[in-house]
């Protein structure tokens, strides 16, 4: 606290002297509050003895002036020292204080969210239609399509995801096999591990694991990349160059993800089954030929094709969701992070929802 500040009473107010800085302001305000001028009264602050003054002191004096105005009184400054004059001269005081915007009420808030949700839904539908048309147009006019960019995307979404998809699928296959072996052994039906692993991996776990990993890895990256381009005006730059951002950015990503995810799923199927195979051979002592025969008996082409079809459908949705969130970014870098996270959550929700729909559909078909 400043020790060089003195505040003494005078006949019509206060005499302030010494260093009026941020430490002295509370002392001054307390003294002013004690005086509490009545409506119509005038309180004079003598600043002739001020030797130094900072912006907090100016703000303190203006605050006292505003409070007095509000209660119909008046606070004025008398004979400010040259130092005080310079400080007071430097800052300008807005005539009116603009109140902060009112937070929306409950109904307004809920209504706003609903409208926002409907708008996002409309934008997503529009993107789905326009994006799909752009993909078709790119395939039709394949000569003008940026194939190099598509290859780049395939390498990122496909090749670079091989290790993680492979490893996770192998581990899931092992775990599934161990869990089922424990139950099946009790009934002397250990050989049916092959059926269980085969069908569950090919129809369900392979596409699901691949889609979840791709959503976390590539869906988020699409959202972040497009979002960053949106923030740095690269999307606007494409528009003013007469280039359609959908055709330029969305098509290679959508094509790459739809091509790569079924391939990754095929790998996930293979490694998932390998996990079960390892458990069958080394833990359950099933002959490899018996395991293979049982597996081939259990699986049919429909299982494989339905799994790969599901994978492609998951992939298209993940791509569209990533693009939708990326293109919806407004504002700065913080918004990119928030939107990327939201895109992953939305993709995961979509994968589970679509998987449920496919399960019901395939059950009905079979």
């Amino acid at each position, binding site marked *: 606290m400043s020790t060089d500040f003195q505040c003494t009473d005078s006949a019509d107010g206060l005499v302030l002297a010494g260093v009026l800085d941020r430490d002295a302001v509370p002392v001054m305000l307390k003294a002013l509050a004690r005086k509490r001028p009545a409506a119509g009264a005038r309180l004079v*602050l003598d600043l002739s003895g001020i030797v130094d003054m900072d912006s907090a002191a*100016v703000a303190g*004096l*203006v605050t006292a*002036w505003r409070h007095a105005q509000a209660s119909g009184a008046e*606070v*004025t*400054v*008398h004979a*400010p020292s040259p130092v005080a*004059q310079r*400080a*007071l*001269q*430097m*800052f*300008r*005081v*807005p*005539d009116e204080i603009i109140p902060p915007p009112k937070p929306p009420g409950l109904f307004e808030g809920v209504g706003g969210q609903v409208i926002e949700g409907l708008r996002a839904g409309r934008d997503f539908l529009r993107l789905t239609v326009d994006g799909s048309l752009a993909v078709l147009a790119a395939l039709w006019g394949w000569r*003008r399509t940026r194939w190099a960019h598509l290859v780049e995307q395939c390498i990122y979404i496909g090749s670079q995801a091989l290790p993680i998809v492979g490893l996770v699928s192998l581990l899931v296959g092992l775990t599934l096999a161990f869990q089922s072996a424990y139950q099946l052994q009790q009934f002397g039906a250990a050989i049916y591990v092959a059926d269980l692993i085969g069908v569950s991996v090919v129809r369900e776990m392979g596409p699901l694991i691949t889609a979840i990993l791709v959503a976390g890895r590539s869906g988020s990256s699409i959202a972040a990349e497009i979002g960053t*381009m949106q923030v*740095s*005006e*690269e999307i*606007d*730059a*494409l*528009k*003013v*160059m*007469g*280039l*359609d951002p959908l055709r330029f950015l969305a098509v290679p990503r959508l094509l790459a993800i739809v091509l790569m995810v079924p391939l990754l799923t095929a790998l996930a199927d293979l490694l998932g089954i390998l996990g079960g195979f390892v458990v069958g051979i080394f833990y359950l002592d099933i002959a490899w030929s018996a395991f293979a025969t049982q597996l081939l008996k259990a699986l049919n082409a429909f299982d494989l094709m339905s799994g790969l079809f599901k994978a492609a459908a998951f992939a298209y949705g993940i791509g569209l969701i990533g693009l939708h969130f990326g293109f919806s970014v407004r504002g700065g870098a913080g918004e990119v992070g928030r939107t990327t996270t939201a895109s992953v959550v939305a993709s995961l929700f979509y994968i589970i929802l679509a998987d449920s729909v496919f399960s019901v559909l395939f059950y009905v078909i079979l």
Partner: protein
Amino acid sequence: MIPGHGTAPVVETRQLIAKYGERTVLRGVDFAVKPGEIKVILGGSGGGKSTLLKHCLGLIEPAGGEVRLLGQDLTTLKGRAREQLFTRIGMLFQYGALLGSLTIAENVALPLVHHTDLPKDVVSEIVRLKLELVELGHAEHMLPSELSGGMRKRAALARAMVMDPEVLFCDEPGAGLDPLTSAELDELLMRLRDRFGMAVVVVTHELMSIERIADSAIMLVQGLPVADGPLDEVKQVDHPEIRAFFGRVAAGEMRGSRSALEILTGRG
């Protein structure tokens, strides 16, 4: 098409109204740019300068009024015709907006690759010519992230000019540049105007730059034009914002606010 022909405005807005949500940013702006002139859009922060520029480029749908670019109504123009129209304009964004995944040469070549059937070697030669013009011949194979802010901006200018546009739009061309680079950029804009008859629309606050390049100017205050015409005439208009902008009065004084001294001593 060779730019610089005709006398009809190359950019024109009539009673343009722009809104962000409930907030009205432009309140009926009439604006025109003649071929071969450098027109500067002036105004304080939040005055609607960049919004006007974005409307002229069709990046934002107007809430009301009309926007014509090279004689065509942007509000109704769609598809291929719109894409074709954009091959006749160039835009220099505030931070360059170069595509980060492409090299400088690929960035500059982008419009040529997509809108022309020129052989690859001719495209490369055009790119080299444009990069030399902005003294970036050595940066052809570099990525935008490997360049300084000033170099990025010059590369973006090369990209904006690659189709020999009839109108070049520039958003704060001197922002973030040192005075020398900024002056060089201004010099280049004037050469483009003089040699190719290109119209240039510039949003800027930089007084030195304005004095150097502007043929005419429009001053926006709270979404309304308070002066429009040759720069010398605009500077003489008796309006507090214009007086403040050209440094004839302090900004606070212009806004009508009083100093703490005036308030506390009861003067003013």
